[in-house]
């Protein structure tokens, strides 16, 4: 049998990144402020985690103008969804093993 821990994704070890991804799994897109309120984070903290997820192509970023303000919204990529599913399955296996 394969070791389930090998399917745990390093990137989701951080509770914050896990939280961002959980929210994006059940919402098509979310904007920065919604994520901020949801996770109760500061701008800088959230931005750095989003950057990390973006660099690994787990989430995609799009900017649009609402009036004169820019609004940044985020969505999970297909690759990101697949990684998250694998991570969840690994977590479940770990629990069932006990």
């Amino acid at each position, binding site marked *: 049998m394969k070791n389930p821990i090998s399917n745990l994704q390093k990137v989701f070890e951080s*509770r914050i990144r896990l*939280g961002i991804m959980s*929210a994006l799994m*059940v*919402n098509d*897109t979310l904007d920065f402020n919604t994520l901020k309120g949801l996770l109760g984070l500061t701008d800088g903290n959230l931005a750095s985690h989003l950057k990390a997820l973006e660099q690994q192509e787990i989430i995609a970023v799009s900017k649009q103008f609402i009036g004169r303000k820019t609004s940044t919204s985020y969505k999970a990529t297909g690759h990101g969804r697949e990684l998250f599913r694998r991570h969840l399955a690994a*977590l479940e296996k770990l*629990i069932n093993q006990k």
Partner: protein
Amino acid sequence: MESESTNPNNDLRAIRDIMERSSRFLSLSGLAGIFAGLCALIGAFFAWFFIFDSDKERFGEFLYSTDVSITSGIGLYLSLDAILVLVAAIVGAACFSRRKARLAGQPVWTTTTRRLIIHVAIPLFTGGIFILILALRNHLELVASVMLIFYGLSLVNAGKFTFSEIHYLGLTEIALGILAGVFVSQGLLLWTIGFGLMHLLYGSIMYYRYERQKKVE
């Protein structure tokens, strides 16, 4: 020996919590339901005792009259009465939801809130327009039924984005609406049960389930 750095149980719990909070509007307060129910009861009371003068015949005549106008007489009073109830209930829902969100330290205006409002508004506006069509074609006997049915559909839609009680309240309203379509002479009574008593009932259930214990903590 525990050597892993993560606790999978806690992780799964956190995932579930975020998924739920991000996709459901949890600031809807049971008090909003209770308030809406009271508004509807007052509105129905006013319609029956003042506009129809608690006169069954007058009510029956009105249902089948062929020259109603919504700009004068009974038609106007009833429309104003209904609009006042609707506006009061919506303002109440907004205020109580803002209060609940503030108490919980959660933002009230989120993507989910917008989604909820859009999904409620589509069947509600469709129903509103359809009621105007019914009024113009002198089918007043069906207005109570149509109000209940379209409002019920709105709530079933809303149920996907908020507490599951809303889904069941929606189904109840639809059932009452269908009854009101069959027993048209009981339209006002069924309307009062649907918009008045059912809101009080479901509002109280939601308040006791989700809000009361939290105050004790």
